[in-house]
């Protein structure tokens, strides 16, 4: 049971405005990325889907039981919303048109054609790299926000422990502890999402 998430949902149902803002600021970017990957990077479509899904979710918060994490539950709601929208013929046409537009776009086609065949930069390698990035991003999104943030501050921003403490408004000791827990959690999530790497990372 995900008691912390259940508690958050109970707070939301009670109408705590601060809890809502924290909830939204935490989950919206993660759901946005979750859907962005499924609509070929079309931000407007991703926005439509996630907004509708979150509206749907806040209407039925009382059905969240805590069997899965809140993020997993929201992903399911969002996935259903995407399926519904795609099922609507008008929306489907829009998605298809956007896809065709991209393929027909001379600039996009130029980029695709500029990738040399063979060697390190062959399209498959590029695609694999993009897939890897998407999987790592997904793994970070599945972590509690503070875990993802501390990992990014450490490895993307190259901040020292003191710098991270400054950025997160906690002590250096708390950062060290958080980093250790975040590494473990990332490995746990990553082993599920990145099985092809065989845990060699």
């Amino acid at each position, binding site marked *: 049971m995900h008691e912390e998430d259940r508690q958050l949902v109970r707070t939301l149902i009670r109408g705590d405005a601060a809890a809502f*803002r924290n909830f939204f600021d935490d989950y919206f970017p993660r759901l946005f990325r979750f859907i962005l990957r499924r609509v070929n990077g079309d*931000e407007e479509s991703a926005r439509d889907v996630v*907004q509708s899904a979150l509206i749907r979710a806040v209407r039925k918060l009382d059905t969240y039981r805590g069997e899965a994490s809140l993020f997993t539950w929201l992903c399911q709601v969002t996935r259903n919303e995407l399926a519904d929208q795609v099922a609507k013929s008008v929306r489907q046409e829009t998605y298809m048109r956007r896809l065709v537009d991209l393929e027909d776009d001379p600039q996009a086609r130029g980029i695709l054609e500029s990738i040399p065949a063979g060697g390190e930069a062959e399209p498959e390698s590029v695609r694999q790299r993009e897939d890897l990035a998407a*999987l790592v991003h997904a793994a970070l999104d599945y972590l509690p926000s503070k875990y993802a943030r501390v990992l990014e501050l450490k490895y993307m921003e190259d901040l020292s422990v003191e710098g991270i403490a400054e950025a997160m408004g906690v002590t250096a000791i708390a950062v*060290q502890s958080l980093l250790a827990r975040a590494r473990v959690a990332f490995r746990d999530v990553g082993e599920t999402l990145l099985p092809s790497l065989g845990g060699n*990372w």
Partner: protein
Amino acid sequence: MDTQPDPRADEPPTDDLARLIRRAGRRPQPDPEMHAAVRAAVEREWSAHASHGGRRGAMVLGVAAALAALAIGLSWYSLHPGAPAGSAEVGTFVAARGPVHVAPTDGHEMVVAGSRLNAGSSIETGPAGYALLTVASVAARLGPGSLLKLNRPGHVELVRGRIYADSGSPSAPPDALVIDTAFGQVTHLGTQFQVRVDPEAMSVSVRDGKVLVSQGGGRSITIDRGQGLRVSSDGEVSRLNVAPYGANWAWVSEFSPNFPIDGRPLSAFLSWYARETGLTLVLRRPVTQADLDRPTLSGSITGLSPAQALAAVMATTQFEYDMTVPGELRIESRATRGAN
């Protein structure tokens, strides 16, 4: 609570996990305006469905930043009844950047620069939110992730986050601002200082002037310029030496009150910059104060950070600046420097 460092945190930063995260690059973020617009839409629905349990919470809005080029504007709000008419005024709203929530206000639909902040109101900033306000005669800034309650005239409560206060002059009335926290009370005695509160501790840093920190049992400690104090949740009190500049204060410059330069002398701008950053202004011979009083500036630095503003303004003068000496902003003649 985290009290012991975990030895696993000392793993070398070049391990495979680090390489993987670096190789993946930054996670894409939704556009801030999109974020704000979607939040407004979802919050309206949430408000309609949540049982508000007696809390008729307020007004949520974003205020377009005064520093337009850097500002992330928010343009949404949901309206609920405000505070009872006639509540005592505690402060004045000045500006905000990023997600900021003000609740409740004096009943107006939208908070704008100059809006009254009455007793019982609060300001909350999101992860990237900043707010400027005045309380009594003191200019205050709230950093990201902060919650400030305005309890009564002259008294505010920092529940979490960080606040920076600048009275503008050491001659500001004593006791003009009292900041309550769960760890003690900080009384402004005419100065520039910041208070930070997190679940583990409160820390006070004094850039200039002095503050009085009071705890239960009548214990009080005066903190002077260059000093700090940390009070932990277990009651441990430790004094610190703090530089008036550097990383500890960096967030303060992230969102500064607008400084109009048009028609003002270069010296006024440099004094403002030094005050914003905690640096000491040093004039290197043959530069004199009179030299800096003469050039009259024109234009605007709206939308620029203090560092950007400094670079932009100095490029239009015959002077160079140098910040290689920690804590100092050195001004020298371009001609002299070129000759060396």
